[in-house]
């Protein structure tokens, strides 16, 4: 039996094994409270990026959740519609992804201070430079913890 990647804390508002507690391997933590994304290699923090998650109607998560990257596309282009997603790393079966977006900075700040009107439809958006770095760094199967607060 393998050890679980995360455990819900007794208060139910965070996943333990985060913030450097996970002992080995690459992991991504999306902190919805601070609108930050952290990339860890074991306990070592590799990247800290600001991000923009889902808006009030389409939250990325309402409960601490653990996923894995199961599909990566440097450029995903819809064959049916004129829609494109760059540096997309999909982590839920309903198609939520970490990806590049042009509207991250201000959205992230607004969400950080509690204004959730703007935001994605569940995806985690990063600036182009940061999305490119994370895409190159994170292999398929990398665990993604969507968390409500950083411990």
């Amino acid at each position, binding site marked *: 039996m393998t050890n679980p990647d995360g455990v819900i804390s007794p208060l139910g508002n965070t996943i333990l094994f985060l913030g450097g507690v996970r002992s080995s391997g690459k992991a991504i933590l999306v902190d919805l409270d601070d609108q930050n994304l952290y990339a860890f290699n074991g306990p070592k923090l590799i990247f800290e990026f600001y991000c923009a998650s889902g808006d009030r109607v389409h939250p990325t998560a309402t409960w601490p959740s653990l996923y894995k990257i199961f599909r990566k596309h440097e450029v995903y282009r819809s064959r049916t519609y004129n*829609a*494109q997603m760059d540096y997309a790393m999909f982590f839920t079966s309903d198609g939520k*992804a970490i990806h590049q977006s042009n*509207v991250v900075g201000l*959205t992230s700040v607004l969400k950080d201070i509690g204004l959730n009107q703007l935001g994605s*439809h569940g995806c985690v958006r990063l600036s182009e430079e940061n999305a490119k770095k994370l895409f190159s760094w994170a292999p398929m199967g990398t665990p993604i913890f969507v968390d409500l607060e950083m411990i």
Partner: protein
Amino acid sequence: MKRLTILVAVLASLILGSAFTTIYYENKISNIDEDIISKEIALLSAVPNSDIPCSKLKNAKNWIVEKKGEVTVFWKFTPEQSRATKLVLGKDLSSATESFSTGCHVN
């Protein structure tokens, strides 16, 4: 002085207004793209590529159709290129397609 103050206020309002309008619409466009692509990925993920019915496809000249739960999947294999195409049709008639390399011809 008064005119200058008014001018500065109007300019500041214009700049702020256009910045927020741009961000609002960029956000809206990104949301539409996300909805479309998320739907497609959900459909494609509903049927893994490993489910390809190689034995049926090897002798088929047309698309092979299978019902998988709530989705219908169409398969086509091109032996010359060792590639297969998968088209997934949802119950709401939304669709997604992808092409991938496969070793069907050697099985």
